[in-house]
C-alpha cells in the first residue's frame, strides 16, 4: 500500500519537476519532431497514396468488423467498415465533397465544421502539413501517460474545436488526442489513444487506435498498409446515392 502511495506521489511530482527544471518545448518543435521520428518529410512526400487494412472491435458490445481505408494526395479518401450485424458503413471525400453512407442512417453529405474536421483528418500526409491546418498551436503542459512523460499540445484549427495532442517526450510519438468532435448528432467529447507504431512505406504509424466517444469505445487494429498502389480512377468517386443527393441539392439552388 505504501509503495502505491509512493509511486503516486512520484507521478504527481514528475510534471512539476519538469516545469521547474526545463522549459516546455515550443509546439512547432514538437510537431516537426513528430514528422522526423516517424520517417521525415522526404519519406512522407514519397507517398502519393495508401491502402490500410485492419479490424475493429466494440468490445463491450461484442461487435467486430473489418476496415479498409484508401487515401490519396491531396485529400481523397474512401473508408469502408463491415461490421457484423450492422452492415457496411462507408465514408469518403473527393474534390471537397465529404460524405457518408450506411445501412442504418442512409446517405448524407457533410457540411460546416463537421466537413472541415473530416477534411483535416482526411488530408494525405496531414502530419507534415499541420501548418496549413492549424493557425495556432501551443504547448500547454506536460503529464504522465502510461508511465511516460508527454507534452501536451493544443492545436486550434481554422474551423472547428481545438484538439489536444499528447507527444511522448522520449520517443516524440503522438499517443493521445482529445477533442470535442463535431458530428451530425452533436458535439461529442472524443478521445483517441494510439500505440504500437510500425513502419510502412518508410513512415511509422500507430497500428492500435482506441477511440472513446459518447459512452462507446472501439479499437481499430491496422494489420497492413500498402503505399503507392495503382488505384482505379473511380476509387474516390461518391456512390450513386450521394450523387443523387448532390443533384437534389443543386436543383433546389
Amino acid at each position: 500500500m505504501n509503495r502505491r502511495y509512493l509511486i503516486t506521489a512520484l507521478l504527481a511530482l514528475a510534471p512539476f519537476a519538469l516545469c521547474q527544471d526545463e522549459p516546455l518545448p515550443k509546439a512547432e518543435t514538437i510537431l516537426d519532431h513528430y514528422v522526423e521520428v516517424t520517417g521525415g518529410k522526404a519519406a512522407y512526400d514519397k507517398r502519393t497514396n495508401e491502402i490500410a487494412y485492419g479490424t475493429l472491435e466494440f468490445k463491450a458490445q461484442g461487435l467486430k468488423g473489418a476496415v479498409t481505408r484508401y487515401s490519396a494526395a491531396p485529400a481523397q479518401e474512401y473508408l469502408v467498415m463491415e461490421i457484423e450485424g450492422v452492415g457496411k458503413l462507408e465514408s469518403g471525400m473527393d474534390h471537397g465533397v465529404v460524405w457518408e453512407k450506411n445501412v442504418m442512417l442512409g446517405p448524407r453529405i457533410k457540411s460546416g465544421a463537421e466537413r472541415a474536421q473530416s477534411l483535416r483528418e482526411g488530408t494525405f500526409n496531414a502530419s507534415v502539413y499541420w501548418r496549413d491546418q492549424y493557425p495556432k498551436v501551443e504547448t500547454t503542459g506536460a503529464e504522465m501517460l502510461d508511465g511516460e512523460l508527454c507534452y501536451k499540445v493544443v492545436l486550434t484549427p481554422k474551423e472547428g474545436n481545438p484538439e489536444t495532442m499528447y507527444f511522448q517526450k522520449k520517443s516524440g510519438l503522438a499517443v493521445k488526442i482529445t477533442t470535442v468532435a463535431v458530428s451530425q448528432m452533436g458535439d461529442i467529447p472524443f478521445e483517441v489513444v494510439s500505440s504500437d507504431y510500425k513502419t510502412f512505406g518508410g513512415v511509422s504509424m500507430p497500428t492500435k487506435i482506441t477511440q472513446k466517444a459518447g459512452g462507446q469505445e472501439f479499437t481499430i487494429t491496422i494489420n497492413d498498409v500498402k503505399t503507392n498502389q495503382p488505384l482505379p480512377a473511380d476509387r474516390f468517386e461518391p456512390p450513386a446515392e450521394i450523387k443523387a443527393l448532390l443533384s437534389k441539392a443543386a436543383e433546389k439552388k
Partner: protein
Amino acid sequence: MKNTRSLRKLALLLLAASLFGQTPAEKQSQIASFEKVWTTIRDKHWQRNPGGLDWQAIHSEFLPRIEAAKSDEEAVAIMREMLGRLKQTHFGIFPAAVYNDVEGEGGGDGSAGIDTRVLEGKAVVTDLDPGSPAEKAGVKPGWVVISVNGKPLGPVIEKLKSDPEIHELALERAVHSRLTGLVGSTIKVAFLDAANTPVTRDLELTTERGQMARFGNLPPMPVFFESKKFGNTGYVRFNMFLDLVRVMSGFGTAVENCMKCDGFIIDLRGNPGGIGGMAMGMAGWLVDKPDQRLGAMYLRDATLNFVINPRAEVFTGPVAILVDGSSASTSEIFAGGLKDLGRARIFGTKTAAAALPSIFERLPNGDGFQYATANYISEGGKALEGIGVTPDVEVKLTREGLLAGHDAVLDAALEWIRKKK
C-alpha cells in the same frame, strides 16, 4: 419429547427473529443491495448530480435507515423512497416475487404463435402467427387465455396490475412468457372461445416467427418483417428495431415501392424497440425537409441529436403509425418524433412510456433493480419517459371486435388515409 421441545425452541427462535428484525445475513444482503443501487446511480445516471440532488448526502441520510430496517420489506421501501427522490421514471425496485411473476415460468425459444393483450383484465388473443401451432389448432383472435398448464392467468394479471411499478409492457411480457417454452415441448392452454365456452388446446411449441438476429452481445432474437398493401396503402410491421440490415433494407424497399401510394402505415404495436439509430434512418424515407430531428438523448457527457437524413426521394403522402402499450423505446422515439414534426398521425393506445435506455439488474437480495442511463426529450420538447406517446386518434381493441375479425386500430388508420385521398 426432546424433539418437540427442540421444535418449540426453533419456533420461538423464528418468532424472535421475526419480531426483532432480519438475520445478520439478510441485513448484510440489504446493505449490499442499497450500496449497489446508490453506486449505480452515482456512476451511471446521466446527470453528475442525479436529479439535482447531493447524492453523497443521500447516502449519508439513507444508509443508517437501511441499517436500522427491521424487515426486508422496510429496506425495500427505504430504497424505493431514495429512488423516488430523483422524481424520474425508470428507476425502481421490484421485489423478487414480483420480478419472478414478470419473468414467468416459461422461457426458451419455443412459441405457440399467440399474440395477446390484456383487455379489461383478461389476456385476449389479438393475433396469431401464420402457420403457428395455435393457428393450426383453431385458436382465434378474441379468445381469452384462461390458464397455461393448469395455472390460471387471472391472479397473475390482477397482482401485476395492482402494482404501480409494473407498466403495461411488463404485464404483456408476463403473459407472453407463460406461452413460451422449449421448442418441441407442449403446453396445455385453456381458452374461452367466441361463445365463452371453455376449450383446451395442447400446443407443441415451435420456433418463434422470424429469423434469429444477432447483434453483438445481445442474445439471438427472432425478428420478423412484413410488408404488404391494403389497396393502394402500404403497410409494414416488424416486431423489433433489430436485424438492422434486413429490416432497414425491407423498410426502404417497401417505401420505394410505395412512392405513389395513397398512404403508408407503420405498425409498431407490440414493438419493444431496439437500435435507436434505426428510427432516424427510417424517418429519412418519410421526411423531406433537411435538419429535422426526432428528439435528443442526454448522456452524462454529451447530447445526441436524433437527426433525420432525408433520402434523395422520400414518400410525401400521409403516414399513419399504429401503437399500443407494448410499443416502447425506439418505437416511441420514432412515433413521438414524427408526431411532433407533424409528419405522422398516431393511432391506437398510449405507448409504454419507456423510451429511455434502461437496464434491469438483480440485486444481492434477489430484487430487481431498474435504472436509466440517459434522458430523452422528443422534438416537441416533452420527455417520452413516464408520459409516452399519446395517439392523435385513440382506438382500443375490443374482444368483440377481434371476434368479428376487425382490427379497429388498422381500420381507423385506413379510413383516415382514404379520407385524405
